[in-house]
């Protein structure tokens, strides 16, 4: 039996003026599944994320989050999503704790409950000791951990990660990749991870290859390898995106 659908995208299109950014995308993301949205720069990954979080709006196609239509039931739909944007979105002058309390307030979580959840998430990410530090004082990897903790604070069903490891060193990247995969496995969290880095993919992941606004492949790692007749994801990605992946 297939797991619950956390995200359903149906015939979604979007254009910046005359320039088409996404062209009739349709796919689904399931609970407990880690889906890597693979594509070179400019493929449309960030646009897709902006549509899923309703920063942009499209009248061509539908998006449903945990069964809630994003257009009709926006607030209920957005309550099911946690997101880490490509660019850091923390308040640099506030402490780690204050940033997380602010996010909790936006999601209607009371102070006491927020405190418990913040401790839980920061402990899990080994950031509890640094909770009183200003975000500005943290390094890139630690800032990302705080952003992941924030994205998980309201216990979402779907976690969106828009190239969260860009600019991080290898150990920091690896720690984040491992942690997110573990979360999906153990908690049933659905993950949509936009990346153009092949080495962030685990063998059990689901792949969505996006190129020039269109889905070029949608399946497990093995299915994509079979589809392209290649031996590695790097080759498959290069073939599907005509040599533009890194």
């Amino acid at each position: 039996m297939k797991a619950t659908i956390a995200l359903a995208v149906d015939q979604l299109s979007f254009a910046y003026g005359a320039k088409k950014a996404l062209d009739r995308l349709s796919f689904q993301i399931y609970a407990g599944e880690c889906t890597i949205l693979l594509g070179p720069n400019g493929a449309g990954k960030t646009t897709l994320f902006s549509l899923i979080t309703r920063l942009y709006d499209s009248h061509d196609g539908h998006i449903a989050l945990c069964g809630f239509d994003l257009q009709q039931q926006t607030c209920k739909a957005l309550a099911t999503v946690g997101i880490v944007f490509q660019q850091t979105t923390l308040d640099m002058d506030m402490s780690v704790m204050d940033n997380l309390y602010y996010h909790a307030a936006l999601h209607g979580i009371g102070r006491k409950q927020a405190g418990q959840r913040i401790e839980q998430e920061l402990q899990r990410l080994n950031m509890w000791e640094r909770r009183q530090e200003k975000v500005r004082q943290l390094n890139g990897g630690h800032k990302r951990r705080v952003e992941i903790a924030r994205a998980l604070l309201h216990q979402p069903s779907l976690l969106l990660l828009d190239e969260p490891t860009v600019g991080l060193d290898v150990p920091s990247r690896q720690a984040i990749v491992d942690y997110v995969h573990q979360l999906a496995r153990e908690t049933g969290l659905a993950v949509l991870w936009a990346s153009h880095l092949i080495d962030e993919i685990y063998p059990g992941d689901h792949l969505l290859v996006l190129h020039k606004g269109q889905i070029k492949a949608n399946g497990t790692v093995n299915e994509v390898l079979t589809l392209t007749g290649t031996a590695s994801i790097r080759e498959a990605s290069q073939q599907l995106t005509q040599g533009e992946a890194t």
Partner: protein
Amino acid sequence: MRVTHYWRALWGIVGRELWRFVTQRERFVSALVRPLVWLFVFAAGFRAALGLAISPPYETYILYEVYITPGLCGMIQLFNGMQSSLSMVYDREMGSMRILLVSPLPRWFLLLSKLLAGVGVSVLQVYVFLAIAWADDIQAPWQGYLWAMPALLLSGLMLGALGLLLSSFIKQLENFAGVMNFVIFPMFFLSTALYPLWKLKESSILLHQIAQYNPFSQAVELIRFALYGQLNLHALIYTSAAFAVFMAAAIFGYNPSKGMMSRKGGA
């Protein structure tokens, strides 16, 4: 969606803005220096040059400093509204605005909360300014300081909503200089903040008419009358209507499917 959710979010947004205001002392000081320079330098210099006839709400001849005090209260709120707008453009460029806009609350509520947070800060600034003016013997009746509160809230909302609307149009921080030249200065100088309407009429009918229809003039008059325990109904209606129009336009501007956000490509 529960009421407590709205309440917590509102306090989260207001608390964050107040925290920023308290911790950024230079912002607090610079917000006060501007009107104080006008009050103690400009007004002192022009006191002799500008004669003022008795006109409501004043019942006797007044010093020029007394006349411009409500206008400077408006000035604080005008600059604060634009400062909030600037910080929203900055937040949008830095990305932190996204976290607010993807919250599971209606966008109008998020914008209104952000607006209320800015108004709270501006009202605080105005009262500190009025306290300094009071200490220098520029005093209104004590009840006036209480009556001024709702007037300041409404004028702050109107000017803040204008700032919010402008921020939905401005894509880059660099473009903000234009706001100073094309919005703040004309609004301030073409108003009753520094000189009464009849004085303007003596110089130019056109300037008089512009000042009359300038919503900032109406906000200043609302504050001026309130400081003397009187209600200027025309100013109240005009300021309320301007607030409603600016707020509706700002909500439209931030609507991802209808407003500027859709044309610019998001927040």
